[in-house]
């Protein structure tokens, strides 16, 4: 186990960062936030195909890179740092990982398409789904004789997806997005809006016989979301530092005022802790048993690392964005400055895939800190 970044990981980071600096500066994201919320198809194509991000988690024999959660985490750090409007988390992590864990020919065929970035997918579950709430599977969609009927709300990445992976009647189905009705909803997060997805006798091909792959995909998503939150928090801190060094009030840079310095020191430490926690989760996920296997040894360690990272990083990202706004003063309240995109993403991320409170709750079991006895 190492919590540092490998050389390969740093190279991947540099490639993603260069692409984003070139194609996705904050001003461009802001400009696109209303005209095409959450979608930069060209950017996604470059990221998915040219850099190969789409296939990171897909085994090499299916055309993927056969990399691990550690590499995907590095990509997410950079995407968070740029609030990039691309469906990497939803397609290349969550939907992909569900298919990887499905195994089977149908899933493998789809993974081949996903690996080269030809197809983009999304899991048809609410972004607000907690990985711990799935003991009772979501009953929103029914499957009958290969036809799906029902509605799923707050689906992230659906608007960018060609393919939907749909939990229905206790199994997983693949549905062509064109056959479903996807309606983007006005969302708090301008760079990853959610959509309502409706199935009305829509044809679906079975890809997984149970919901275990869905649970694995939600855990993978939650654990790697911490890295997105880390990158986001790092941007907020860096942007705040640049501002307080530059902005003068009382004939001094405001960054020379000790109260601000101490707050920023505390925020820096919170992010140092977030980085360690996010790396811990990515590393644990990278060392999980491969696709298809159920909860064998080490699963508790992984669940614990994911819960710790989510319990900490969700709050840290919101805190970083809120401090960023406050220390920008009035400037931070304007639409013109991109920091509000980060605040909105951070707040939506806090809800996504389990709130920090849900993850702390899970730790009651995972860390053996039992709840009070019923009165």
């Amino acid at each position, binding site marked *: 186990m190492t919590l540092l970044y490998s050389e390969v990981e740093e190279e991947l980071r540099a490639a993603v960062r260069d692409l984003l600096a070139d194609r996705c500066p904050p001003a461009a994201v802001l400009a696109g936030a209303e005209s095409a919320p959450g979608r930069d198809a060209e950017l996604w194509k470059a990221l998915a195909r040219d850099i190969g991000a789409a296939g990171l988690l897909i085994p090499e024999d299916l055309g993927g890179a056969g990399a691990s959660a550690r590499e995907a985490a590095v990509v997410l750090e950079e995407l968070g740092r740029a609030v990039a409007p691309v469906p990497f988390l939803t397609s290349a992590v969550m939907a992909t990982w569900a298919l990887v864990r499905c195994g089977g020919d149908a899933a493998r065929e789809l993974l081949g398409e996903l690996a080269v970035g030809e197809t983009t997918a999304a899991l048809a579950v609410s972004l607000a789904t907690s990985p711990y709430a799935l003991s009772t599977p979501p009953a929103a969609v029914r499957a009958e004789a290969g036809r799906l009927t029902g509605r799923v709300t707050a689906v992230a990445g659906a608007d960018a997806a060609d393919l939907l992976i749909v939990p229905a009647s206790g199994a997983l189905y693949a549905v062509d997005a064109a056959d479903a009705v996807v309606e983007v909803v006005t969302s708090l997060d301008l760079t990853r809006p959610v959509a309502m997805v409706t199935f009305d006798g829509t044809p679906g091909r079975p890809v997984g016989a149970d919901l275990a792959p869905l649970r694995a995909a939600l855990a993978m998503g939650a654990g790697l979301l911490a890295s997105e939150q880390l990158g986001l928090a790092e941007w907020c801190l860096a942007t705040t530092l640049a501002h307080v060094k530059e902005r003068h009030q009382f004939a*001094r840079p405001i960054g020379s005022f000790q109260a601000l310095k101490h707050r920023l020191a505390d925020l820096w430490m919170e992010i140092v802790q977030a980085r360690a926690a996010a790396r811990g989760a990515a590393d644990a996920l990278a060392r999980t048993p491969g696709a298809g296997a159920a909860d064998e040894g080490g699963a508790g360690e992984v669940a614990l690392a994911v819960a710790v990272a989510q319990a900490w990083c969700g709050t840290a990202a919101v805190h970083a964005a809120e401090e960023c706004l*406050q220390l920008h003063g009035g400037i931070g309240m304007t639409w013109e400055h991109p920091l509000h995109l980060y605040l909105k993403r951070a707040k939506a991320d806090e809800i996504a895939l389990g709130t920090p409170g849900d993850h702390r709750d899970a730790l009651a079991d995972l860390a053996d800190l039992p709840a009070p006895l019923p009165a």
Partner: protein
Amino acid sequence: MTVDETAVEERVRAFLARHDPAATPPLDFLRARFDAGLAWVHFPEGLGGLGAPRELQSVVERALTGTPQHDVGRLAIGLGMAAPTILAFGTEEQKRRFLRPLWTGEEVWCQLFSEPGAGSDLATLATRAVRDGDEWVVDGQKVWTSGAHFARWAILVARTDPDVPKHQGLTYFVCDMRAPGVEVRPLRQITGEAEFNEVFLTGVRLPDDLRLGAVGDGWRVAQATLMNERVAIGGAPGRRGGGMLAEITETWRNRPELRTHDLHRRLLDLWVEAEVTRLAGARLREQLAAGAPGPEGSGVKLAFARLNQALSGLEVEMRREEGLLYDDWTFRRSESVDFFGRGPGYRYLRAKGNSIEGGTSEILRNIIAERVLGLPAEPRADKNVPWKDLPR
């Protein structure tokens, strides 16, 4: 005290006997109420008041419930900031000219204080006013001006002498918002709407009788305005469980499926904090009943901002899937502000301004530390330097 209360009640009775609220046109009713001294009882007679203790205002409000009222939201700056400043520093003529239409709502006021380069450090502001005979010529840019697009008048601070240290070269004016050279542009906020404006002043000519207080005394006059602003923001009397708390507790009570132990503890914590803040505000108002607002008001404003932010943040989280949604990002002007209105996403974003507008929480902590606790000032680089020589 009992005599005064009885006297006020008697005044109200007599006023109502002469002006039937149901039969009198609203504006006439408000004008008559002002003239009867029942606008703000602690103001002097002839200026809308009775020279009575401030706390007796509540007697009037109770007795006039259900009668025509002015729009407090629209008039907030006039009532909360301009009026007490005009009363304290205006000439007799200015008081007579401005206070009545300000109170009745015939003339709306806005505030031209902050600038892009002068936020927390307001005294460093750069808008120039140059004397030209009996007039002043004003040039500069102001920001964070709510209601500028429908305001008739503004309170304005401008630099009249750049060659003296920053606090000494300021003068306070009433600005005619209809004067040539005043340009108002909406400023879009993170909520999507434009509640505030940028105001560009280009060669705006103001007669000298719109000056409030002495030339060079603008900082002292502005301080009075700001103290009143902070009390107005933080010190509004609230009922228990009201304000931002009302929204989240309603959700909590009506939506048992959203409840978790984690949220419950955090809600209980904030409920207690809201209640002790309400009590602190009530105690402050008791202390202020007879006097003017002091720096202590900064504390309640500070606590109010913290609470609004914490409560609205918790509400978004508590609502889960609904918290991912937003009602409307459309860029449009808002005519009035309601911190507690619209959806949870709006409330969350709007509350972020509470620790910035009317003095950032950082500035308020400085004020408390130095003026209430008597802690020594930090070493200052800008105290005795002419404004024009300051680094920026």
